[in-house]
């Protein structure tokens, strides 16, 4: 109750990990931690779905339905009927 952030779309397949360490470097919330053989998913609950780990994983071991966690942008997109939700539009940007 009153926690919409308990689960998210982050998925990690250690089988594909080559232990390059990128996910641990790019994550600003310490979701991944470097380990001896493969990266370890230590704090999945803190994931904000920014997608940096997925984008920087060279083997596609990580998948996350990433996007901008901004209600203003999402409501605006819903009202306009557009699919794309992003910050920083050319005129009425929500974030700077």
């Amino acid at each position, binding site marked *: 109750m*009153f*926690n*919409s*952030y308990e*689960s*998210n*779309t982050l998925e990690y397949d250690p089988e594909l990990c080559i232990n390059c360490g*990128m996910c641990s*470097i*790019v*994550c*600003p*919330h*310490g979701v991944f931690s470097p380990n001896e053989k493969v990266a370890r998913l230590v704090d999945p609950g*803190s*994931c*904000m*779905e*920014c*997608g*940096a780990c997925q*984008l*920087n994983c*060279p083997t596609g071991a990580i998948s996350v*339905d*990433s*996007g*901008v*966690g*901004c*209600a*203003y*942008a*999402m*409501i605006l997109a*819903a009202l306009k009927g557009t699919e794309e*939700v*992003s*910050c*920083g539009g*050319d*005129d009425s*940007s*929500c*974030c*700077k």
Partner: protein
Amino acid sequence: MSDIITLSTRSEIRPANSDITFEDHMDHIKARWGVNRSSHRVEPGLYALGSPAPDSQVLVTANYTLSFDKLRSSLKGIDCYILVLDTRGINVWCAAGKGTFGTGELVHRIKTTGLYDVVNHRILILPQLGATGVAAHEVKQQSGFKVEYGPVRAEDLPEYLKTHKADPEMREVHFTLPDRFVLIPVDFVKVLLPMILAAFLLLLVGESLMAAGIVSAVLAGAVLFPILLPWLPTTDFSSKGFILGGLVALIFAAFSFFGQASGWLRAGWVLIYMLVLPPITAYLALNFTGSTTFTSVTGVRREIFTYVPVMGYMFGSGVLLLIILTLITIFGGL
């Protein structure tokens, strides 16, 4: 001869320093208050900070003045190159989310600035929060440059540059009171006009207490909420906002309760305050999710589906009741 050709195809390297002038400060204040929002831009391209040599580091940033100025002022006494990407005047984090601070623009900028001839190494240092838009392995593949993600905050750069290793603390985003505080004006100016209009309309029909209530609910959502964020109970921004807005509403409901003559009217006004004010604060609170660096899309979507209908029904029925009661009061039905 070949030197001349290389030089002529290479775009100019602009000089930069670490000083923040009075004009820079004024520009920052305007940016924070949303004045000419998209005009706080730096010309994209290559900059020389101090007097860099071919083996000097190359740091990459966005062409938003606040981003560029934060970077160069954090590098006092360090000679290096700064590669400014064209993010249309938007900060690294937001531009990376949008993809303008991205692999494509980075590779394009490396090529158009002739960086290959300026430095004798192939390493770029990017802000960690740019990783949302940049795939390091693809940059390497497309340009030959190795992307190194530096710390989240520019002020940690001098420390980072000594070892090229960031400790976990440098990799972690914070959302401290000062961090939240500087974000208040830009959201506040957006709600200022609707707030003044609503208050003015209510004053016209003689509802001064309601006008004050609306102003208070907006201030609670846009100013108080960002400050109190970590201390408000529950996790969801909307529920936190409902709690804060509920407290504001209670104050006005109490004022109204003791100020009305008829018991019938008393109940009506208490209901109006409790219905109209909390959703205003809650809605503004929900919108603050976009200013944070920790709310996930999945969570925000869930919040919208859970709370926005409630906000709509509460506000709608409250306003309807307000109109009815105001008409009754004006035309003296009771």
